[in-house]
């Protein structure tokens, strides 16, 4: 059970590092934002994994149920998901403006055009 006990965390770390890799290795700005989304979702999975109670059920009061999963991580992640889509929207708006200003969304082409970066 040692392996299964850590499997969630390892997949979370793998997903997190995949998102990180997309952010630092690809030069397309839309791909970078998708990488940030992958990273973010991995953090959600980490929190929800920590709230799971074995044999528990969803934290909604029901007849004959005594064991519930921890509702606190769920609340934190609900907030994080909505904030996440707000930041994604803002980032994509910036990408659209960068496209209007530079005519490209590739990071290295923008660097080549603008000496100050």
């Amino acid at each position, binding site marked *: 059970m040692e392996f299964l006990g850590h499997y969630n965390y390892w997949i979370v*770390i793998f997903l997190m*590092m995949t998102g990180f890799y997309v952010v630092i290795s690809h030069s397309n700005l839309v*791909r970078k934002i998708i990488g940030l989304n992958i990273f973010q*979702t991995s953090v959600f999975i980490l929190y929800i994994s920590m709230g799971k109670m074995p044999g528990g059920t969803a934290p909604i009061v029901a007849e004959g149920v005594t064991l519930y999963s921890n509702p606190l991580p769920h609340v*934190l992640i609900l907030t994080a998901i909505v*904030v996440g*889509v707000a930041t994604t929207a803002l980032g994509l*708006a910036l990408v659209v403006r960068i496209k209007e200003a530079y005519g490209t969304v590739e990071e290295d082409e923008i660097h080549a055009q603008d000496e100050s970066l």
Partner: protein
Amino acid sequence: MIETLIDIVLLTFLAVTAIVIVRIRSLFAVIMLAGIYSLASAGLFVVLDAVDVAFTEAVVGAGISTVLLLGTLALTGEQRKTTSRHGPLIPLAVVTLTGAVLVWGTWDMPLFGDPGAPAHQHVAPRYIQDSPNEVGVPNMVTSVLASYRGFDTLGEVTVIFTAGVGVLALLGFRRRKPRHPEREKP
């Protein structure tokens, strides 16, 4: 037992989707896969008892985010070139090193599904036992969100409002003159 099996299968599916997102070239396919990734994680949240989070992730992550990304793709256009100035080696080394340190950190984490984990000890029992009487809503997530941690939600609304103002300020209502008129379609 069956829950653990579904958990493992969905996590593996997420990992495979993430690898394909890194490898594939077409930006449209990447956006669709990001939607699939969000939907699979919503399924995982159902298995892990977080039904409210699963609803939100399916609607916001798989729905709205995909629409926003597709809209951006329509405005900026597909670009085939995916090479970057550095090869893949430096980012791969950074990512492997960071990941190794994080895996080392998991040895101190409580095992998955440990009932004695610190996360279950502090305020969670109070929310579970007393919130149906104190707030009067059967869904504990709702009572924590709207009552016990209401200021968190107020802060969330502030963040969304700020982001909305930011998007409007960036894209606005005006039609800006393009700086490179030859690149714009008529």
